[in-house]
């Protein structure tokens, strides 16, 4: 079973600030991490590999410093990492990213399963996975909270819904996106860390992918554009309720009843 996992380097969300003058994000000195949902994706891939054999490949698209998150996954036990990095890709939206990743899958060729995290915590769109599935014509199971069964040719998995879960069966190859509930990601092993330190990921540019259409990517190829960004204005007129427990509770319940919701 050969598994491809798409991962992304994101800024730790607690550190995000906009430059009040320019409205762009301040990136200097901001801590970058492996997207938390992608850790579950990598973990699940490693568990399948441990059971069935094969190879786990991680792919990320980003600047050269994104090699760091590839190394982290190598430390966890991933076999190979590929960094997709090219100036032509700068400014790509979800469609352009999905197109690029679908070309990566074409070049890799021999895979049975693609795993992504539910979403990246920077853009929070959750769109790239389904869009890659569309570009590659793959069946997809989103929001997977458990893989019940997997073989070389099929998968049976639970899809988390708002009111419970659906069980789906699909032939492979397929793409799945995973939620946090699916597993508890392992830490990098000491041996893994040693290996990761020396590990040099493959780097592919658009020219390395045969038939890649540069018109589909970058700012120009992206159908969506950011029109403006701003820091949300929060106008909370908070009121602290004083008194002992009984008094405070009485005041609060009075206010709740005035809302006519309960």
């Amino acid at each position: 079973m050969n598994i491809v996992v798409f991962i992304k380097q994101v800024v730790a969300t607690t550190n995000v600030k906009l430059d009040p003058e320019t409205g762009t994000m301040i990136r200097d000195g901001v801590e970058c991490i492996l997207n938390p949902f992608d850790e579950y994706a990598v973990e699940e891939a490693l568990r399948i590999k441990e059971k069935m054999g094969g190879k786990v490949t991680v792919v990320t698209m980003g600047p050269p410093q994104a090699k760091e998150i590839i190394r982290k996954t190598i430390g966890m036990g991933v076999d190979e990492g590929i960094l997709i990095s090219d100036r032509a890709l700068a400014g790509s939206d979800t469609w352009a990213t999905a197109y690029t990743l679908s070309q990566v899958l074409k070049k890799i060729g021999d895979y049975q399963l693609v795993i992504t995290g539910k979403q990246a915590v920077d853009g929070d769109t959750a769109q790239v996975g389904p869009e890659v599935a569309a570009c590659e014509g793959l069946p997809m199971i989103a929001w997977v909270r458990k893989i019940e069964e997997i073989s070389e040719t099929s998968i049976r998995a639970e899809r988390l819904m708002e009111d419970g879960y659906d069980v789906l069966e699909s032939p492979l190859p397929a793409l799945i996106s995973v939620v946090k509930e699916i597993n508890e990601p392992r830490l990098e092993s000491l041996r893994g860390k040693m290996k990761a330190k020396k590990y040099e990921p493959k780097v592919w540019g658009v020219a390395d992918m045969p038939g890649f259409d540069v018109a589909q990517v970058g700012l120009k190829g992206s159908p969506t554009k950011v029109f403006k960004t701003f820091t949300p204005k929060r106008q909370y007129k908070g009121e602290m309720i004083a008194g002992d427990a009984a008094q405070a509770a009485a005041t609060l319940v009075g206010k709740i009843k005035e809302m006519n919701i309960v």
Partner: protein
Amino acid sequence: MNTDDYKNVWIYAEQRAGKLSTVSYELLGAGRKLADDLGQQLVAILLGSNMRAAADELIAYGADKVYYMDSPALEKFADEPYARVLTDLVKEHKPAIVLAGATAIGRSFIPRVAAELRTGMTADCTGLDIDPEKKILLGTRPAYGGNIMATIICEEKRPQMATVRHKVMKPLEKDDSRKGEVMEKSIVESELTIRAKVVDIIKEMEDTCNIAEADIIVTGGRGVGCKENFALVHDLAAAIGGAVGASRAVVDAGWVPYSHQVGQTGKTVCPKIYFALGVSGAIQHLAGMQSSDVIIAVNNNPDAEIFKVATYGIVGNLNEVVPEMIKQLKNGA
């Protein structure tokens, strides 16, 4: 692409188990305004089986027209047939805008439709407007866990697609006298490719307990203390008719299942009243609940971040305040 060829505002009317989801009504409310701003029609797309009556309901809530695609293959949500049918409808009728709920269903298959149409899509919008000059959709959405708001446009491709956060848009009043047209079409199952098939549906929560749908949510955080003490959270939820939510810490500790988790790595909720009991208010938690109408925080730490977003705050011991609240609520009933 001549964008002028694309007209009307479409909403995908989501259904689960043959019942329209609440977000469908909210989309009609939001879509009605956009359609009126453009001077165009509001069209609802309904995919399902034996749901003709729901089509009339969509008219009563604001649609001018409904395309109802009926097939046993569309009864349960699967990405491939849903995407195929919606994509084909878009190609045939050329809408300017397609909206869907930012739900488990909408966020799964709507991007697939966008990619097949090779058009742009904006996820999880909390604001929708029409640019008065260019007549394009301005989709505003939170990113980076709600730290940044971004307005996204899709100028050159059509349709302009977006998913919309549930509970943010307001539905219209039902009006049974509204007139509209229902176009019904049967779809032959054998014409649809369905590889990832639904073989079972497990409903774990009633709608009232489902935090995505609930009007009132009572969430417990680490400050609740221990698993046994979490009964307090359940008791208040029961007394007030709310659903139970949980912070990440509480889910990670195994006190409550993940399906109850509110926040960036859990669910985004927008109830009328949100109780945060012993929740410190980490930014990842705030990202999932700060658009709630009323936020009530109880915490023994007066400096807890949660008080910065709270409408009402009580500094005190949960074990004393919450039982009093339950008592007061029951007294008044």
